[in-house]
């Protein structure tokens, strides 16, 4: 089976495919197919090589996971907690901001403001993560110390939630700070996707709401949000995927410990999977490396799942809207 014949059979839309150029065509379409397949191969390769290198990492003798854990589960659970805590803090901060900014761009600002606003937000995406890390570690952390104290003083005494706001770190290099830096980093992607779906709200529906005597906010609630709901959900998921996998911001900002605590203001907190790999890879002991690759595999599957879900939601709603 050669590539060009499959192409001719599978692509009835390309009625002009009958125009043949002999060898040149076969080589070119073969190369295109090869490139497409190499993407499949690359993704499969990521999984396979991580699996080969990492599979032994799940079942090492207890001392490899030490000094704080005895098994892979014991090793990875604090990391998962750190990963998710930082990501959830990031989402809590970034999502409302991103939705607000997306609305500014799509519905609130006049065009001459909306375009620069969109550009500024895109610039946030262009800043390399290591620069965010540098800024977070050397500047933002110190600036946030008073806020840590304030949160501890005012929210600490509240039952249940108070556990999150325990004894604050004097240096500010905490999960909260890492989460804030992450929030800034995932803001552009959430903004970009939601502004896109917001601006696709049919003008007809918006005018219908306005003509019924809706204020601008009521119009947004009646027409824009219902229309964009699945797009908003998947934007949040994609933001979550980014936050889960982001390495440098957490690595550079957070001072690491292995105590499993819920205090997001603590002096030392469990780090994230990605940051842990970046911190530990240098030890280059073969056993530990296997463990690190195994945690990487966990992270890969996790982000794959989150992204998969996000894309699936978008695809499903696009099919529904197309009907």
């Amino acid at each position: 089976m050669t590539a060009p014949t499959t192409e001719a059979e599978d692509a009835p839309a390309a009625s002009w495919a009958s125009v043949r150029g002999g060898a040149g065509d076969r080589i070119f379409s073969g190369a295109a197919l090869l490139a497409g397949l190499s993407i499949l191969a690359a993704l499969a390769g990521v999984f396979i090589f991580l699996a080969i290198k990492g599979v032994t990492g799940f079942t090492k003798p207890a001392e490899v996971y030490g000094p704080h854990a005895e098994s892979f589960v014991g090793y990875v659970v604090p990391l998962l907690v750190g990963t998710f805590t930082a990501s959830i803090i990031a989402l809590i901060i970034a999502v409302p901001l991103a939705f607000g900014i997306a609305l500014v761009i799509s519905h609130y600002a006049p065009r001459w403001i909306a375009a620069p606003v969109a550009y500024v937000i895109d610039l946030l995406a262009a800043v390399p993560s290591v620069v965010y890390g540098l800024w977070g570690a050397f500047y933002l952390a110190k600036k946030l110390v008073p806020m840590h104290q304030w949160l501890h003083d005012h929210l600490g005494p509240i039952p249940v939630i108070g556990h999150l706001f325990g004894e604050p770190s004097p240096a500010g290099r905490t999960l909260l700070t890492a989460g804030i830096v992450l929030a800034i980093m995932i803001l552009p992607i959430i903004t970009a996707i939601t502004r896109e779906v917001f601006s696709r709200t049919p003008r007809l529906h918006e005018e219908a709401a306005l003509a019924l005597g809706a204020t601008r906010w009521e119009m947004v609630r009646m027409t824009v949000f219902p229309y964009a709901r699945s797009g908003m959900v998947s934007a949040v998921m994609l933001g979550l995927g980014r936050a889960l996998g982001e390495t440098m911001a957490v690595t550079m900002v957070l001072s690491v410990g292995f105590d499993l605590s819920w205090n997001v203001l603590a002096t030392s907190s469990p780090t994230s999977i990605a940051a842990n790999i970046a911190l530990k890879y240098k030890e280059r002991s073969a056993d530990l490396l296997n463990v690190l690759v195994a945690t990487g595999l966990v992270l890969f599957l996790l982000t794959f799942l989150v992204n998969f879900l996000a894309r699936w939601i978008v695809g499903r709603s696009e099919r529904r809207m197309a009907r």
Partner: protein
Amino acid sequence: MAKSIDVSDVNIYYGDFLAVQGVNMTVRAGAVTAFIGPSGCGKSTFLRSLNRMHEVIPGARVEGKIVVDGQDLYEPGVDPVAVRRQVGMVFQRPNPFPTMSIYDNVLAGLKLNAGKLKKNAADEVVEKSLRGANLWNEVKDRLNKPGMGLSGGQQQRLCIARAIAVEPQILLMDEPCSALDPISTSAIEDLIHELKNDYTIVIVTHNMQQAARVSDDTGFFNLKATGEPGHLVEFNPTKKMFANPDDPATEAYISGRFG
């Protein structure tokens, strides 16, 4: 309680571009007034200025006076949201809210103002509005189905029901039948006849026969020349307009000798 509209010296702009110039007319209460004219002559633009929907477009503005019930709509203290509550609008293409049921579509406008309605009061409004729009018998068994599931003509009548549910004084219709088949069109025209007992209706139409069929008064809009603003050429009772127009341009347009 239908209301009349007194329009004096209205100019309508898109940014710096003057789209409609110097309109003066009186739309009679409880009558149907039709606007006819070639494409791009500003009749829809003018219609949208009657409930301040024109200014939704960035840069768009209106000069002059449009007085309803002794109140100039463009006076500084007037809230456009309140204006649109009192002057309902039906659009060219049916636009029920896609995520709402038929029931919720009818109540959409009312919920904005009244907050929570009692269940039986809401039921009554829905029934009354849908009956008013000649749609009740067709949809009474599927009120909780999405409004998008209806046919085009039914959707348009649903939009009319949605507009009259808030009991406006005036109902504006922007080519309400242009996206519909002849049968749906005649259903809407019948409905317009019934509605004029309760509402002042202003309708924009491309179809001169429709204007002749449904309206009491007719306004003819035209462009002076390409690139010039649109203006009101003639405003007269429909009978006179179609039998013996004052302006030769009107006669040319109506008899098809246009341009």
